[in-house]
């Protein structure tokens, strides 16, 4: 878009707004001034009216003043009645009320006339008059005072009434003057405002005419030039520029839009010419391509024929097929790939031939090995059965041993109880021995008494003998008796001595017996301790027997597992056997198939097949080590040693 410098001037709307604004300002100012002057006049007239009303009320007051004074005079005249007539009193009161209420109007007029001192004196004058008429005169009339006093009060009332009347006249006259002045000034103001309004209206009309001329001319010229330019474009004249593009208002925008239409039309004509040229060039190129494609088709058919022949040979098993004639450049790659494929197939087939021979040999060996394995598995199953039977016997033996050991434990406990009882019996025996000793001691004491008695008897007998001897012949018989008594005493003493000896002997025997009983008790206690030890051993025997039982159970489980495994092994060996037989047959078939392919010379015997060695990886036998452990547990390691001394690397598959 031609973005030439755009002048910044007023738009059409703005121009219209300036016209309207000028009219608004003119008429607004006229209206405002008229309204203001009217207000002023109105206020002045209202004040004049107020003053006029005040003057009217002052006139009323002047009448009231006169009425009052006349009423007072009449009262003085009729003083003989000694009373003031009630209707006169009412007149006096009404007149005084009018004078008093007019004091406000008097204040307003005084303010307007700037005569405040007069207004103040008015109130005091009214007061003085009231005093003179309502109080002093009334008192004088009722008292029936002298004529002199009445003359005095008459003068006073007259003076006050005249003074009041003068004041009221002054106010009335001055107020009339002021009111006339006010009306005159209002009329003056009204005239001057009319003049100002006319002047303002003229100024506004002139300003609007000038603006209308300037803005109207500008808009009209701009629209006319744009219209001309657009007509030129419509008639095909695209070379000349659109006028008025540089304007900043709506007309400038219209001019710029017309310029864009012009530029778009120019561009469209250019595009049409370029398309026609391009179409001619592409027609020439297509013709060239068609001739080249024809040549390509011929070369392709030659290559396809050659490839077809090669593939037919491959299909017939001739892997020596090769395409020697070169193809077109882009198909040459295909020929090379075919040759490469044939070569790879040749090599692969050669390898397959070699490997199939090897597989054949190995499968034969596998067949033999699988037969052997089947035989050995059967042997193993038989061995396991025997082992299981032996293990059952061992289990029952161990169970028997356990129950025997438990019985022994019970017997030992019984024996221990008996031993404890025998301890008590030994104690009882000891106590009995002690009792025997005590009894022996008592017997000894008694024997001593008997001995003493025998001794004393002996002495008595001796004395008797002595006395008998001294008695001479007369005491002979008595002497014989005394002798007899002495002999008896001697015998008693001897017997006592014998008993004493016997008692001491029995005491010694009892002592020995006590020692023997103690020794027996000690021996029994020893037996008890031994029994306890036996009990401990028996318990440990029981414990180990139970452990053995548990171990045997585990062995039993292991053997049953081994049995199951062996069964499965046997099944699997049979399957393996069948599979190896099938494998051998298949390997022979494979060799036959591979021989059908012609793979040329030099491809055979790239590698000699390796036969599996019979003993590649001998493994340690877990079962043998288990047997070694079991044997060691039962025979104190002798068997384990014999097993351990056997060669470490033997093949357990052999057993």
């Amino acid at each position, binding site marked *: 878009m031609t973005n030439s410098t755009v002048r910044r001037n007023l738009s059409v709307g703005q121009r219209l707004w300036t016209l309207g604004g000028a009219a608004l300002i003119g008429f607004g100012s006229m209206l405002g001034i008229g309204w203001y002057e009217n207000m002023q006049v109105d206020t002045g007239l209202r004040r004049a009216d107020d003053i006029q009303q005040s003057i009217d009320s002052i006139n009323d007051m002047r009448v009231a003043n006169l009425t009052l004074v006349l009423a007072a005079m009449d009262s003085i005249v009729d003083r003989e009645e000694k009373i003031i007539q009630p209707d006169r009193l009412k007149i006096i009161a009404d007149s005084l009320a009018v004078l008093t209420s007019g004091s406000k109007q008097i204040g307003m007029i005084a303010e307007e006339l700037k005569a405040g001192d007069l207004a103040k004196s008015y109130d005091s004058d009214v007061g003085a008059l009231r005093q003179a008429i309502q109080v002093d005169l009334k008192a004088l009339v009722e008292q029936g005072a002298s004529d002199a006093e009445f003359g005095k009060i008459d003068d006073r009332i007259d003076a006050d009434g005249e003074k009041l009347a003068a004041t009221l006249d002054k106010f009335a006259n001055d107020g009339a003057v002021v009111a006339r002045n006010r009306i005159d000034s209002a009329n003056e103001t009204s005239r001057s405002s009319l003049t100002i309004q006319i002047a303002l209206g003229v100024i506004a009309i002139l300003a609007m005419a000038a603006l209308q001329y300037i803005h109207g001319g500008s808009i009209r010229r701009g629209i006319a030039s744009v219209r001309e330019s657009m007509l030129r474009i419509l008639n095909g004249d695209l070379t000349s520029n659109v006028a008025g593009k540089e304007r900043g208002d709506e007309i400038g925008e219209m001019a710029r839009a017309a310029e864009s239409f012009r530029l778009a039309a120019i561009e469209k004509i250019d595009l049409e010419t370029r398309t026609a040229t391009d179409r001619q060039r592409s027609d020439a190129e297509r013709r060239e391509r068609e001739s080249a494609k024809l040549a390509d088709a011929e070369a392709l058919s030659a290559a396809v024929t050659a490839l077809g022949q090669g593939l037919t040979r491959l299909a017939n098993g001739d892997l020596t097929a090769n395409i020697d004639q070169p193809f077109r450049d882009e198909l040459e790659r295909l020929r090379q790939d075919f040759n490469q494929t044939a070569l790879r197939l040749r090599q692969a087939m050669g390898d397959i031939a070699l490997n199939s021979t090897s597989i054949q040999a190995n499968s034969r060996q596998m067949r033999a090995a699988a037969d052997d394995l089947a035989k050995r598995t059967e042997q193993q199953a038989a061995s396991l059965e025997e082992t299981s039977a032996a293990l059952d016997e061992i289990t029952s033996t161990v169970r028997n041993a356990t129950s025997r050991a438990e019985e022994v434990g019970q017997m030992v406990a019984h024996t221990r109880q008996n031993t404890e009882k025998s301890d008590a019996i030994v104690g009882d025996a000891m106590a009995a021995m002690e009792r025997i000793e005590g009894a022996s001691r008592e017997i000894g004491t008694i024997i001593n008494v008997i001995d003493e008695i025998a*001794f004393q008897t002996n*002495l008595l007998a*001796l004395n008797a*003998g*002595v006395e008998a001897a*001294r008695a001479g012949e007369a005491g002979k018989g008595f002497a014989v008796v005394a002798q007899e008594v002495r002999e008896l005493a001697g015998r008693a003493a001897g017997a006592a001595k014998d008993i004493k000896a016997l008692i001491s002997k029995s005491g010694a025997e009892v002592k020995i017996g006590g020692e023997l009983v103690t020794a027996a008790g000690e021996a029994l206690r020893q037996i008890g301790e031994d029994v306890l030890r036996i009990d401990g051993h028996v318990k440990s025997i029981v414990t180990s027997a139970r452990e053995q039982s548990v171990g045997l159970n585990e062995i039993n489980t292991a053997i049953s597992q081994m049995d199951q495994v062996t069964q499965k092994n046997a099944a699997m060996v049979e399957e393996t056997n069948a599979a190896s037989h099938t494998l051998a047959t298949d390997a022979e078939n494979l060799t036959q198939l591979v021989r059908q392919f012609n793979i040329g010379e030099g491809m055979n015997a790239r590698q000699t097949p390796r036969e599996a060695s019979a003993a590649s990886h001998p493994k340690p036998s877990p079962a043998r080590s288990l047997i070694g452990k079991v044997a060691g547990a039962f025979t104190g390691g002798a068997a384990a040693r014999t097993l351990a001394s056997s060669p470490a690397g033997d093949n357990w598959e052999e057993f």
Partner: protein
Amino acid sequence: MSNAIKQSGAYLEIVSFHLGDQEFCIDIMAIREIRGWAPVTPMPHTPPYVLGLINLRGAVIPVIDMACRLGMKMTEPSERSAIIVTDIAGKLVGLLVEQVSDMMTIKSEDLQPPPEIIPEAQRAFCRGIVALEKTMVCFLNLDTVIADELTREAA
């Protein structure tokens, strides 16, 4: 006394007792009483064989250890020991002996005089020897054994 024996002629009644291993005897007529052993009250300034005094029914009598008096070992008094109360020349004397063994009657012919080989002074103690079946018993002369002592003491 000897006269009395001779006069009676045929028989002598004697009481035999033991002192250590030896056996002695005295004339039964010299004995007043035989009693068991009782503790004695020792006396000062007495020969060793005088053991002390005892109270015999109110009478105070001395007790003499016969074994000691006869030049043998002192007797150990025991409950089975005996005191033979004798009347020697009108005085009561207690003789401590180990054991009163027998009271017997012998013929005066059985009393044999002591051998003369023993000196006179010592021979005076013994009036004779009584030979029994198993042992020989010395018949003590209490007058010489005790009386002399008493007289000497008195002197």
